[in-house]
Structure formats: structure tokens, C-alpha cells
């Protein structure tokens, strides 16, 4: 079952009088429950695609359908509701609220979602049951990213979007985070889109969308995705 459809999506930014297109002729689809990786070098337009998908930006043209909804037509307000109910976002630099404990960071997300999971359960699930009341500054990078993941999935979103989630982590920790994401995707049947420039990570994906110079070069379905603990970088 197709959850996401990108159809000839184009995004232009206007800088002064010049129009720069970040992405164009961008088409792909992602099925529900799939772990998709958008792979490409820096500046290829990965983040723009993720932003468009996450409702943080609207395309200049083309169609974006998520779960049957044409989000490219959404106005600002609708986009907020879309992000609120359907999207879980994970950033390279975690973006936790430093002033809130791990638990509270998760609760912050939960309290605005009607179908959210119990924050404690989720934190337990990401292996932080003993760090519930720690503040971000007291946590390691990996732990912080776990909290970020917990915060994203606790909302019970339709879509989990991860922007270079391991970018700021060492390889071991990164691997564990990837494993966690894979596990979550599979166990909770949560469609996950992950951005990376790391081809190795692409091995764990169900679908690899290669992006270069602002357009989709190829969409490969990985018949046998590796388990996260099988990869090395």
C-alpha cells in the first residue's frame, strides 16, 4: 500500500532576481511500513525533499500525496496540523529542548497529539528507562538522539522522517541509532524516511532513492535489506 507519492515535484527558491531550483522532476513513492533511504551527496536536495515531505515547506509545483491527502495544496494551518498529527521528525543535532528532561521532551510532543503513546513506555522502548529525568546536557549524543527518536515516535505519526540522524554521532552509536530506527520501523510498522549521504546505511533500507543535483536519479528496491548490526562504517 502506497503511503507517499511524489509526482514531478519542483521546489524553487528565489534569491534576489535569480530563481534557484533546489529540486525538480522529482517523483517516487514509498509504501506504508517501508524504511526508505534518500541517498545523495551534500547539496543534492535531500533535505529539501524531506522538508517538503514533512510539511515544513510547500513545493513550487507537482503533487505530494501522503496517505491520500494532497499536502502540496495545504495551507499553513493545515500544514501545522499535518506535522502535528502525521509526522515525526528526527534531526542531526537532536534539537531537544535543553530545559526539559528526557521524559518531558517526549511529553512535550505527546501532549499535542491525540493518539500518542505513553512517553515512559516509548523511552523504555528506546532503552532510556533509567534516564527519564536526565536533562539533555546530561546525556550523551546517542542518548540524546534516542530521546529525539522517542519524542518523534511517541506522537504515533504516520511517517517518521530522519535527517542525517547519525551525522553527529560516532559510528558505534550511529549504528545503534540506525538499529533502533530499523527496529521501530519494523516493530511498529511505522513508515520511515531517512536521509543520509552514507551509502552503507542505504543497505538497511527497503527502498533507496538516490538523489543527485536536485533530481531523483534512481529508486531501488532492496529485496534483502541488511540488519543494522550487519553493516560497518
Amino acid at each position: 500500500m502506497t503511503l507517499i507519492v511524489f509526482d514531478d515535484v519542483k521546489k524553487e527558491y528565489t534569491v534576489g532576481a535569480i530563481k534557484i531550483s533546489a529540486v525538480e522532476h522529482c517523483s517516487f513513492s514509498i509504501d506504508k511500513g517501508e524504511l526508505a533511504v534518500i541517498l545523495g551527496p551534500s547539496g543534492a536536495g535531500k533535505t529539501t525533499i524531506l522538508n517538503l515531505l514533512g510539511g515544513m515547506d510547500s513545493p513550487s509545483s507537482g503533487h505530494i500525496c501522503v496517505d491520500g491527502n494532497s499536502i502540496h495544496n495545504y495551507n499553513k494551518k493545515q500544514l501545522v496540523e499535518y506535522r502535528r498529527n502525521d509526522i515525526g521528525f528526527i534531526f542531526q543535532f537532536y534539537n531537544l529542548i535543553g530545559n526539559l528532561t528526557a521524559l518531558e521532551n517526549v511529553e512535550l510532543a505527546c501532549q499535542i497529539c491525540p493518539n500518542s503513546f505513553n512517553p515512559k513506555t516509548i523511552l523504555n522502548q528506546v532503552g532510556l528507562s533509567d534516564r527519564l529525568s536526565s536533562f539533555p546536557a546530561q546525556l550523551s549524543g546517542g542518548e540524546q538522539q534516542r530521546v529525539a527518536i522517542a519524542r518523534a515516535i511517541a506522537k504515533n505519526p504516520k511517517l517518521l522522517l530522519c535527517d542525517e540522524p547519525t551525522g553527529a554521532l560516532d559510528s558505534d552509536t550511529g549504528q545503534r541509532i540506525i538499529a533502533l530506527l530499523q527496529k521501530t520501523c519494523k516493530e511498529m510498522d511505522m513508515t520511515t524516511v531517512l536521509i543520509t549521504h552514507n551509502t552503507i546505511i542505504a543497505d538497511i533500507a527497503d527502498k533507496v532513492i538516490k538523489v543527485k543535483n536536485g533530481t531523483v536519479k534512481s529508486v531501488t528496491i532492496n529485496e534483502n535489506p541488511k540488519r543494522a548490526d550487519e553493516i560497518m562504517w
Partner: protein
Amino acid sequence: MSLLYKNVSLKIRKSLGRYLSLLIIIMVGVGFFAGVNATSPDVVNVADTYYKNYELMDFKIISTMGLTDADVAILQQLYNVQLVVPSYSLDVQSRGNAIRIHSIENNVNIVKLTSGLMPESDKECLADSRTYMIGDKIEITDNMDDKLINTEFTVVGLIDSVLYINNDYGSTSIGNGKLASFIFINKNNFILEAYTEIYIIAQTDNADAYSNQYNSIVAMLNEKIVEIKSDRENARYDEIYFEAMTKINDSEVELKNEQTKAEKEFSDAKKTLDDSALKLYQGKNELAENEATLEGIVNTKNAEFDLAKQLIADGWQKIDDGLSEAGITKESIDFHIDELTLAITYLQLQLENYPTDSPEYVDIYATLMEYFGKLNSLEQLKTSINVLNAQELELNNGINLFNAEIDKARNEILNAKNEIITNEKKLRDGYTEYNKNLAEFKTEIADATKKINDAKQELFDLDYPKWYIYDRDTVIGYTELDNVIKIINAIAAVLPFFFILISMLMTSNSMARMITEERNEIGTLTSLGYKDSDIILTYLFYVLSATGIGAIVGFFIGCRIIPPLIYSNFIYILPPLVLEYNLRTLIIAIAITFVLMISVTTVVCNKELKQKPAYLMRPLPPARGQRIFLEKIGLIWKRMSFTWKVTMRNMFRYKKRALMTVIGVAGCAALLVTAFGIHDGMTGVAEKQYGGILRYDEMIILKDEVSTIDGGLKELLDKEAIINPLLLKQNAYSCEQAGRSLDFYMIVPQNNELFNEYFNLESTLDKQHISLDDDSIIITQRIAKVYNLKNGDILTIKDLDNNNYNLTVTDIAENYVSNYIYMNTSTYSEVFDETATFNVIVANSATDETMLAEQLINNELVVNVVFTGDALNTVFDSTQRLSGVIALVIIIASLLTIVVLYNLTSINISERTREIATLKVLGFRDGETNSYIYREALILTVISMGVGVVAGIALHHYLIDVIENGALSLFKNIKLFSYVAACILTLVFSVFMQIVTYFKLKKIDMIESLKSVE
């Protein structure tokens, strides 16, 4: 290096908002600091220059009996006296208004000619430019004949006088008691025997008016004048006494001379009259004698005449007998004679014819002989007749002559008699007139004697002259101006400091923030090998250029705008303000700014620069979250909603920012509370004093001290329907203790009950009514405050002649205008060892005030009437004057509140952009995102308001104390409304800034904000 500065200038252009906000905050802070600080020097300078240029006197001495050249000479010799000018002034009525006429002086209180010319003749005058026009005729309606040569003047020049710097000219003892205007005329127009006043200019070493130096010089001189005061008063008394005495003696001598002379004249007149009377009497007797003699003569003569007539008649008888014998008549005798002669002749002829013997012859002869005989007897008879005829003729002639003479004599006597009657009448008239004149003379003498005696009595009753020594306080407006300046100084001492502190906090905060934000760039520069000092210098360049420009611009704008703004609220008649730019203030402001900015920038930069460049280039790790105190109180913490918990946590985590907000906003709120509070303190003070405390309608100042209301005074009060008059003794005293001097009135009422009705005194301690009893000495709050007195303490007071008295305070009463000490007559006798006499009446009345004032002032028993309503208006006006200053404080405090809140909000948003973007990505709606920030801002604002109110109360308390230096006290309580107004204003600014924030938040771009740090 130059590239670094290029970078800085680019930075300035790029973040112009931040640069400008730095600049503006410093500008407002320094501007207000400099402006308010410049105000009182500017105003003092303008006033002082005015006083100096127009030689405002330092002292004015008036005496109840005029002043003399001797006084001038003595005063001239006093130490520190530069100039002594005797002069004249008179309060007169003109067209129903009371105006004061001064003599034009060219070396003291010089008039400022605003248009027209100086008078050339004595019929011209200079007049108040606010009342008169050139060409106006001013006619004096009082009778001033013995004081002025001319009583009608033409205005030839309009003036301002340094003696009148307030638009209220004060009071006078004539007309309705209010001085309406003033004119200046040539000195020789005055024909008074003594000067009405003496002006003294002290050697003040060019000390500024109102300065301590000036005040102490003047105070010293004042003491010197007080020292000679009683001598001069006595001298004047002696002078007047001896002059009057001499006059009386002269008059007495003159009277005596006159009397003697007149008496002599009268006795002479009497003698003349008596002599005349005697003469007349003698004349009358003589006349009577003469008349008698005359009649005697007449009788004798008549008898003689009768006899003679008898003789003649006898003769005639004989003749007639002879005739009849002869048979002839007298008429025929001649015929017979002729016949006989003829017969004889015939016979003789015949005889011849006959012989001698012839018978014929003999016969003839015999016949002849007979004939001869007959002829002979006839002839004899004829002779007798002739003789008798002659005799009779003679006799008749004699009788006629005699009778004529007698008639003449009789006529003379009659005339003499008539003359005597006339003279007698004249004499009677003379006596009548004499008696009349004598009576008149006696009356005149009695009158003159009485006059002399009266004069003697008057001289005996002569009061000692009294000198009144006035310093410049007597210039209406002089002291008030001082009070206003003091208030501005008090504000200048505190408020701008507050302002500058807040702006410093704000700028250093934003500077620190800026450096933190740019840590990455600092890291890059360090890694490129730039020296730390170079990097710091670029930031210093940034901050010092902003604050330096801000300070300089602020200084000039502040000095340019604020003093004239405050000055425009003054209603004094002073020359236009001359703006001065005191560079010292600028240097101080810049120095403070620079020291603070340099230290903040250096400290923050150094903190960053201590780090390794690599670390700097990584994003700043999130600050450590921490549990807050509130979490330990589970009861509260558990009940708080999640968002509240977040808010609380945020507030406590960003302590510095919260503190900044609280200090900034609380400071502004405090300023607002203070400003409103001072306004409260002023409004209603007048009403409270005149109506609340002093409850009488009018105060009547008597000419002479009396011991009770009786006689003419009672009649007057009854006639004017004065209700419940209460006699008071009101005298001025002063106190100098602990280096502070205070003037006050002592009031001694005749009647305690009425006093308690008219003077509603309330204790400052318990707000209970204080009634005046025996032994109570009640002082008003300002005296107690200044000398730190409590009930039972001793206050030493000084009268105008520098005698000291000790008073034991029994109560302290609420009071707002002037200072008073109250005691009753028995206490007074104990303290001063004399029985109190009274010089003032306070009372109520039901009649029209203006009418009453005229009626009373025109009465010779009354000097002046002061209506409580007028006093209320005066105080009301002077408090109104400060409203402008208060408004300025409110406006600037508001301005600063806005700038501070804007700055804080900007910093808040810039610091939390990432957090807010995260929330947005998480799907927080705009409202939710905002409330996440707002709740915090709102709580901080509320806390700030609380702190601000408390700080405001403290600041207000301090300022009120400073302002109260003068005779005016203010309410210490701030009204609820003022708190509410200050809080609402703060809240309004806060809400306004939240609206600005709302749009700023809306503009935050999630993607940009969350982009990995480059």
C-alpha cells in the same frame, strides 16, 4: 586587520536593528540623564543671570516708621555689604486695583525694559508689561498728596521686574488684599519724610543664587543686620520722639507767646475801652454842668433884662407923664418944640419993639420967659425920649445878641449830647466785641493746649519702630523656584541614574548575547590565527561606536529637549532658557558607558576565546537543565500542567534573562509608581491643608495686638457678619539645630474650644484628633521630621531677635503647608513669661469674599485679610506646576519600558529561535508556540510589577523626603489608582511587545533555524 573592521562594518549594516537598538537605548538613557541633570543648572543659571544682571537685592529692610540716611550709613558699614540703596514704594489704588509704585533705581532691582522708553518727566512711568500698554494713563485714586507729587502717570515703557518673577504678585494691605500690578516712577516723585525701604546688595563673591555658598553668605549678613536691628529701631524711635518732642515744645512756647501777646492786646483794648468810657462819663458831666451854667446865665441875664426893661418902662412912664402933663404926645413933641421955637422967635421980635420996661414988654417978656421954660422942658423931654429910645434899642439889641448866643450854646450842648450817645453805643459795641474775642481766644488757647496735650499723649504712646528684614524670599516666586529646582535636582539625582543603569544592563546583555551568537565566527577567526586582542577590538569597535554615538547624540538631544520641556512648564517670568552643554556630564556618561561596555565585551570575549577554536566552531551545547526549587514541593509541582512546568523551568533556567527582564521592567514600573505617587502626593495637599486641617474661612490680620474682642473691633465683626471669631497670636519663629534651619509660625489661640473647631489637628502617630490643652505644645510633622523629634523631646526655637526658648513637644500633628507650633495662652505665659496678646482673627463668614475683604481692609483696625480659598488656590497652582515634570518622567519611563521590553524580547527570541523552530516542527500551532513564550513573559511582567511596586514605594519614599525640603509637605501615601495605573501601563507595554513578538515568531523559518550550524 582592516578586513576585520570591514567585517564589523558589514555586521553593523547587516544587523542594523541590533546596532541601532544598542545606540538608542544608550541614547535615551544618557539623554535623560544629561537632560535632567542639565535642567536645574540651566534654570538656576537663567534665574541667577537674571538676578545678577538686574541686580536683585539680597535684602530688603522695611520699618514700621520709615528708614533714614543714618540707617543707610550704618548698614553700609556692615561686613560683606556691597551696596545699600534707600528707596520708596507705595501700595495704592488705581481703578479699583491695588498696585505697587516703586521708585526707579539704577543700581538695584533694575527694571528690564521690554518696550518703550525710560520716563523723562515725573508724570511718566514704567509699568508691568503684563497689565499695561504704552500710552495708558494710570490714575491713583487714593489721596496721596502728602506722599507723591503727581498722582497721574502716562506709561512710556513696559517692563519686567526682577522683583516679580511669579505671575502672582502677592498680597497687599489695601483694596481687596491682592496686588494686581506694579509701576516704577522717578524717585523725586516721592515726598515722604523717610524712606520706605532699604535694599542691600551683599558681597556674594558672585555666588550663584540658591547655592549653599550664597545662602551662607546671606545668612551671615542677616545675623549682622539682626544685630544692629534693635539699635536702629531705638535710634529711629529716639529720632521720632525727639523730633516730636521738639515740635511739641516749640508749639508750647509759641502758644505761650501767642497767649501772652494776645492777652496784652486784650488788656490794652480793655484799657482803651475803659478810658473811653471814663472820658465819655466826664464829657457827659461837663456838658451837664455847662448846660446848668448856661441856664444860670440865661436866668440872670433875663432878670437883668427885665430890670432894664422895667427901668426903660419907668422912663417911658415918666416921659409919658411929662407928655401927658404937657399935653402932648411923643409924636407931637417936635411940633411943639418947633412951635415954641417959632413963638419964642416971634416974641423975641416983638420984645424988641417994646421997650424994656414997657408993660408990653414986661408982659411979652414974661411970656417969652415962659416960653423959654416950656421949650427947655420940652427939649429936655425930647432928650430923655431919645436917650430912652437909645437905651431901649441897646437893651433890645443886647437881649437879641444874648439870646442868639444862648441858642448857639444850647445847640452846642445838644450836639455834644448826641455825640455822647453815639460814643456810648460805640463803647458798648466795643465791650461786646472785646468779650466775644476774649471768649474766642480762650477757646483757641484751650484747643491748642489740648492739641499739645494730645500730641504729648501720642508721643507717650509711641510704639517702638519695628524693622522687618527680608531676604530674597520676599520676591514672590523666588523660593518656589528654588523648591521646583530642588525637586528637579532630587529627580536628577535618582531617576536618570536608574535609567542609565537599566540601559547599561540592557546593552551589556545584548552585547554578551551577540558575542555568544558569533562564537562560531570567533572560532574561525582564531583558527585563522587572528590575535585575541584584535578580535576583542573589533567587538569593542562595534559596541563603543554604537554606545559612543548613542551617548553623544543622547547627550545633545537630552540637553536640547529636556530642559526647555521642563522649563516650559514653569510659570515664572524669567528670560528664555539658555541651553548649556555641560561636557562633564557627557564625559561621565561616556566614561560609565565605556567602562561597562569594555568590561562586558572583554569578559565575554575572553570567555569564548579561552576555548579551542574547534570547540567554538561546534554549536553551543545546550545549557544544563536543572531541577528547580519548585519541583521539591511536590504538592504544587504535581498540580501544575505540563506547559506551566515548562514555563517555570524556563524561567528559572534562564535566570540571567529573567533577572534582566525583572530589573528592566521593574525599574520602569518603579519609576511609574514613583511618578504617579508624587503626583498623588501633590494632589489634594492643598485641599487637605485648607479645608481639612485649617477649617476657617478667613484670617484677619489686625493692626494692633489686642487682648480681647471689644469696642470698634467687635462692632466691625458684628457688622460684617463674621461668625465665631477666634483671636490668635501668630508670630514667626525659626529653629536652627543640627545644621538645618526651619521657619515656622507659633499660634496661640485665645479660646481652646474654638481652636479645636478651626484647627482639625490629627496626630501623625495614630491619626487621632489632637485637642489643645494646658501644657500641650503641638508641633507639625515637618518640624518633627527635620529635627527627628518625638513626643517629649525638646525643641529650641528662636524669635526674630535671636532669643532662645525651649519647648517640650507633646504632640505631632499632620500638616502640609508651612510649619506651625501650637500652644495655649497658659503654656505661652509659662514659656515666654508674658501674657499673650493677639494679632490675628480666624473666623467664618457668610458674605461675599471680595466685598468682605474691601470692607475689612478699609477699616483702620485691620491690616489684611487672607481667605483660605485664596491660599488653597496658591498652593494648588504651585503643585500643578510640577505636573509637567511628572509627565516627563512618566513619558520617558514608558519610553524606556518599551525599549527595554523590545530588547529583552528580541534577545529572548534570538536565543530561542531553535527551540521555537523545534516546537513548530513538532506541530505546535502558532498560538501554542506563542503562549509558550508569552506565559513566561507574562509571569515575568507580573513579577516585575510586584518588584517594581516595592521598589517604587522605596524610591517614592526617598524622593518625597527630598522634595519636602521646602515648606510644602506631601502625602506619603500612594493611591491604589497609581499602583493600578503603573501596572496597567507596564502591562500595556508588555502586551504591545508581545504583539511585536507574535509577528517575529511567525516569521521564524523552521528550515533555516534548524539547519545544521555551518
